[in-house]
């Protein structure tokens, strides 16, 4: 059996049955991802799909790609190692708002500034799903959860604004309530030659708030296109991003119109240049001989 020349969405679907709650937003994200991958067309074995821990982080197992369901919060550093070790791979990173912005928050700025060609999908549900409903860093202030029975006392973070402040070249937001829109954004993010980020509002039906469910999304969402937003304007993007938590904008906030070379491209140049200086294997140590 040879691999099909064209990969359809179903070729990215594995046999493992998702353990998500019926109705979880992540089902939609998974569908959109299958489609986006098929649109991009890389064979599954050339895709490395890296995640942390959380309901959303289960996603690699549901694809036929190489998957690595790592530890909580460390998907980005691990993915960077994968990509630098083999820049020919398509590397997708995914996880939740807790995984990415709480315990993993320290890695984001550095992944962004290195500009390694990764696509980072966050399934932002404003709650900790897997551990059953605690506060997440995107939970609105005052929210009552099992860890904030009297209401949270702190402001949420703003992932869109952060990513822009970090200098990310591609920043978008999507919801599975708009499947074609989300699919197109994931595809565009994958195709962007550099670090790209899509914040996906993926509702938690079990622990999430009423107004953050798919139904609410459908009425609430506004496409940035409809606002005539110019996605090459970083300052305008910063301004719009400030509405995170109030407005549900979908689409591309910012796309660097002149993507700089990726980190791995610079690495390749350096390797090519330096390889001339390589010593034969058994003469490595001669470098230390007294001159």
């Amino acid at each position, binding site marked *: 059996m040879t*691999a099909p020349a064209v990969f359809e969405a179903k070729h990215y679907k594995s046999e*493992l049955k998702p353990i998500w709650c019926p109705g979880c937003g992540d089902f939609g994200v998974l569908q959109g991802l299958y489609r986006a991958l098929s649109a991009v067309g890389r*064979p*599954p*074995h*050339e*895709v*490395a799909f*890296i995640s942390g*821990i959380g309901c959303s982080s289960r996603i*690699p*197992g549901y694809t*036929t*790609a*190489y*998957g*690595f*369901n*790592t*530890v909580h919060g*460390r998907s*980005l*550093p*691990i*993915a*960077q*190692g*994968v*990509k*630098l*070790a*083999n820049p*020919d*791979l398509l590397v997708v990173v995914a996880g939740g708002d807790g995984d990415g912005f709480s315990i993993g928050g*320290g*890695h984001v*700025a*550095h992944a962004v500034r290195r500009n390694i060609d990764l696509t980072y999908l966050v399934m932002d549900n404003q709650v900790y799903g897997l551990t059953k409903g605690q506060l997440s860093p995107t939970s609105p202030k005052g929210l009552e959860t099992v860890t904030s029975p009297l209401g949270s006392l702190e402001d949420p973070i703003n992932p869109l604004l952060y990513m822009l402040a970090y200098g990310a070249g591609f920043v978008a937001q999507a919801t599975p309530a708009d499947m074609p829109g989300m699919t197109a954004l994931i595809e565009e993010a994958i195709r962007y030659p550099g670090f790209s980020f899509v914040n996906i509002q993926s509702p938690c039906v079990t622990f999430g708030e009423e107004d953050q469910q798919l139904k609410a999304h459908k009425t609430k969402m506004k496409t940035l296109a409809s606002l005539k937003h110019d996605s090459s304007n970083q300052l305008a993007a910063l301004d719009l991003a400030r509405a995170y938590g109030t407005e549900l904008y979908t689409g591309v906030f910012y796309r660097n119109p002149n993507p700089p070379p990726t980190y791995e491209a610079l*690495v390749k140049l*350096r*390797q090519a*240049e*330096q*390889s*001339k*200086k*390589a*010593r034969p*294997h*058994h003469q*490595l*140590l*001669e*470098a*230390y*001989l*007294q*001159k």
Partner: protein
Amino acid sequence: MLDDLILGMAGAGGDGVVSAGESLLAAASSEGYHALMTKSFGSQIRGGESSCRVRLSTKKVLNPGGALDVVVALNWDDFFKFGAELPLSIDTIFIYEEKAGPPPETLKARGVVPKELIPVSISELTKKSSGTEKSKTSVVLGLLSGWFGIPAEAISRGIKKKFGSKGEGLLEANEKALAAGIEYAKAHPLASPHELARPKAAPGSKMLCDGNDMCAAGALFAGVKFFGGYPITPSTEVMQTLSKEIWKYGGTVLQCEDEIAGIGATVGASFAGRKSMTATSGPGMDLKTEILGLATIAELPLVVLNVQRGGPSTGLPTKPEQADLFQAAFSGHGDVLRPVLAPTDVEDSFKTTVTAFNIAEQYQTPVIILSDQEIAQRKEALDLIDTTKLEVIDRRVPTAAELADKPYARFALTESGISPISHPGMEKGTYLAAGIEHNEKGDPTSSGGLHAKMNEKRFKKLEPLKQRSDLFELRGNADAKLGFIAWGSTAGVAREAVELAKADGHDVKLLIPYLLHPIAEQVYADFFRSLTHGLVVELSHQGQLYRMLRMFIDVPKGVRSFARSGANPFQPRELVKRLIELKGQPS
């Protein structure tokens, strides 16, 4: 004529004593001497006091040595800041800047009566001979050459190399200063001559390197393609060297935002099929703990170098200690068996690193290398290491045929416990790697039954390591009734202790484990068989190897722990003394 000479120098930041030590090392070793140098700085970041010790010998140098034969003090304040690092004895000769005056009374309080006090007006001599005070260390080198017979030509060659590019004037000044020093020494012979015997080896080019150099070189030799790390004393030089070198061999270094990211990226690169490594010291090891566990359960090869310093916490960041063995073996939750290796000197830092990669790749496991500050940063003059017989092992990847045959089971329960490992890019090799427990395919499970099987697999695959007697060094008579066990930098002290003991007429053997974990029970049992008394010597408050041995082997009553906190290295003499004392006690 002496076979062995230990020199210590100390001065203020600008005095250049460390650079002088390096010149001495280079000069002596190019003449065929064996040589070793350690250096030490005050806590001030720059401009503080600095010191070095240089040991020169006609025989292989096994450790930095004990009390100094010769002291060069440019001022006493700075000198005494180094305390135990520049140990004195009644045989020490003191050379010092005349201006500084005689050594303070505190010396006597410590019980040291200097054998010979030699004030030299070093600054004046320098100014007079060279017209500047900057070439002070060249006068010192001249004095040492004159009094101890270190060939002047070699020092002069070194001076040419060092100052040749820095303009005529500087070169000339230093050459004049050197000559003045030599002349002065000739004109003022020592009361007790201390000339070094001629070296036995022919002059020739040696490797000048430290343990960190050799770990980096070992990694390159083994084929490292990825290094992810974060700076920390005293391991940073490994990353620094690789940052220069690895690109030549198609690899990458990533300076990460912290140690977690460092091991994270490294694990990622290993998952992607490349040999990979990270290096750090104690605090960084703590942070890497979680992802070490991930590598264990996902069965990913990985080399982690820990250059030990004094702990706990920030502890003594620039001093050696051997107190991270428990951490290496036992940190992390759950049941884990993680191989731990330790080099004992600069030379075997190279081989140990290659071995670490081989074990990591063969057994699909993280491997810890425990170096320490002393080995890592001491400079030695070594003969070129012959690498032609060194094996390099790569991980067992499933063949195309194997993958075509049947669905790939990444964690297949094989006889050996080792399952062929694919990596992204390999067709039909896709699987889910995970930190969660899994079945043979890699799918998540919460079954206790599968968990037990996988634990067994992960332990069983490492059983063969316990048979690796090649990862031990045995010295002395196998039937000796007395013995030492020592590892890491302490092993070099024990090697000399065995010789001292022999010279004293004691039959003492020595076992040096390069493999610290898993405990190779049979090797130790064999070693213990003939023993009535023994010491497990370690630079840690608890004596961690001794305790670990007890966990797995019945350690004879006569074998005791000889352990103390770091930054206070053992001396060969005291090991012999303690062992002989112990012998007097019932076993």
